[in-house]
């Protein structure tokens, strides 16, 4: 009985090792480059790398589980389905397996926790960091305020007279500092291809950074269930050349000029008044 168990373990381990050796490089080099959210910005490219690391590490684990289940179904199937159902050999503990299980899983979890923390601290990884960011990328940033409301995002550019626009346009090869806030309920600003996701909370300035690369278009979605039209709270934005941005912002100042006199002075958060007919 003991010899048979050892034989099964070796066969399983061999199948797992071969499958891992074949599939892990495929995952890294074939699937990795195509992982979301793409390489449009420095942050999104970093997220592609992070996702590749996570997928590469989870591949042997997933293979281990799947091969173990498959092997058990195949190797320990009922040899004679029409015969009497017999009880199998009793299950016994194996301290060596238990120890290695603990060592491997603990090492994996600790590595991933450390890896994730380091990556977050490097540049914020495109996530909202609250009003006092822990990691601030070096360089002068273009500030853009993202204002969420049921059910639309609008954008203010404090460096350009505080004008507000209904669409997001930012220049290429530029560090952008998003200040995300809300006028009503909790929303989430998710600029998918930019690799930016930051909650929009009323009364809070949530800061996220992104460094753009080439001109591109990107989608903006709300990622927090925020009411009846949450599913429709989306828009598209553009990363344009610096020259095109200069032209666009000049046009926007003219187009949205009539509303400027009604806008409140630029602020990190807003507490709109009146609150309508609220009860």
């Amino acid at each position, binding site marked *: 009985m003991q010899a048979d168990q050892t034989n099964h373990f070796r066969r399983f381990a061999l199948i797992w090792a071969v499958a891992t050796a074949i599939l892990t490089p495929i995952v890294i080099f074939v699937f990795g480059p195509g992982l979301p959210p793409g390489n449009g910005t420095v942050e999104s490219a970093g997220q592609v790398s992070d996702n590749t690391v996570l997928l590469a590490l989870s591949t042997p684990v997933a293979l281990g589980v799947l091969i173990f289940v498959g092997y058990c179904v195949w190797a320990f199937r009922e040899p004679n389905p029409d015969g009497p159902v017999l009880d199998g050999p009793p299950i016994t503990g194996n301290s060596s397996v238990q120890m290695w299980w603990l060592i491997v899983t603990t090492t994996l979890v600790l590595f991933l926790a450390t890896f994730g923390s380091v990556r977050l601290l490097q540049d914020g990884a495109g996530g909202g960091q609250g009003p006092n960011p822990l990691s601030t990328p070096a360089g002068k940033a273009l500030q853009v305020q993202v204002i969420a409301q*049921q*059910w*639309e995002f*609008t954008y203010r550019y404090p460096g350009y007279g505080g004008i507000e626009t*209904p669409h997001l346009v930012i220049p290429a090869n530029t560090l952008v500092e998003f200040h995300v806030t809300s006028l009503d309920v909790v929303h989430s600003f998710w600029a998918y291809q930019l690799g930016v996701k930051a909650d929009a909370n009323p009364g809070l300035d949530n800061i996220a950074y992104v460094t753009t690369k080439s001109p591109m278009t990107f989608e903006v979605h709300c990622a927090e269930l925020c009411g*009846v039209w949450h599913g429709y709270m989306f828009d598209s934005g553009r990363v344009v050349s610096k020259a095109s941005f200069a032209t666009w912002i000049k046009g926007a100042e003219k187009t949205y000029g009539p509303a400027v006199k*009604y806008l409140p002075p630029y602020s990190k958060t807003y507490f709109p008044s009146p*609150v*309508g*007919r609220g009860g």
Partner: protein
Amino acid sequence: MVKRSLLVLTAALVVSVAIAMYVVLYLTNVPDSARAAQTSAGTELYLATVPAAALNDPHPSWVSYYQTNSRDTNWQHKTTFIVPANTLVHVTVFQYDGDSGLRNPFISQATGTVGGTFTLDGKTIQAIDPNTASHVFAIPQLGLSVPLQGVDGNAKNQCGNAPCTMSQAHQTITFSFRTGAKGSLYRWQCFVPCAAGYIDGFGGPMQTVGYMDGFVKVV
């Protein structure tokens, strides 16, 4: 074995059909719709906003949009508007409600209309004082947004529940916008927190399709 497999397959089929029906019904089940009128002037859509729906409505205290006609009669509680594709639609809104004010003053400016303007009681303008806004007619997917100024609180002969009449205090707002491709389905909404009695004015009719929200169906 075969019997069990058949049972599992049948159960899976039933569940799949049920899920598919749920999705189809969800996507197609929209409130009553009304077509824009075709006149010699083109495609016309006549709407009205009231402080409260008709007394026989399930929510007679809720603020609401209605569809009417050029004479502001024949009121219908329909908020899905059917319009032709790639067409200029001329919208007239008879606005009977008082002001509530906008949370975001930016929305006090009209966007997405022909010329970026609208008329308020015959006067062509681009924006209103955000504190005087009563409602907004906005189709965010088209970039269309028009603020509707509220009736003066001291005005005489104010309307309570729908239907209202032209002799009652109201504002008339007109604007035009161009529709998109055939088959498009847009949502429209109000941006003013106008739901009386709800937290920050954002509950009830603001969160229920058929009052301050609806669809624009392009055919």
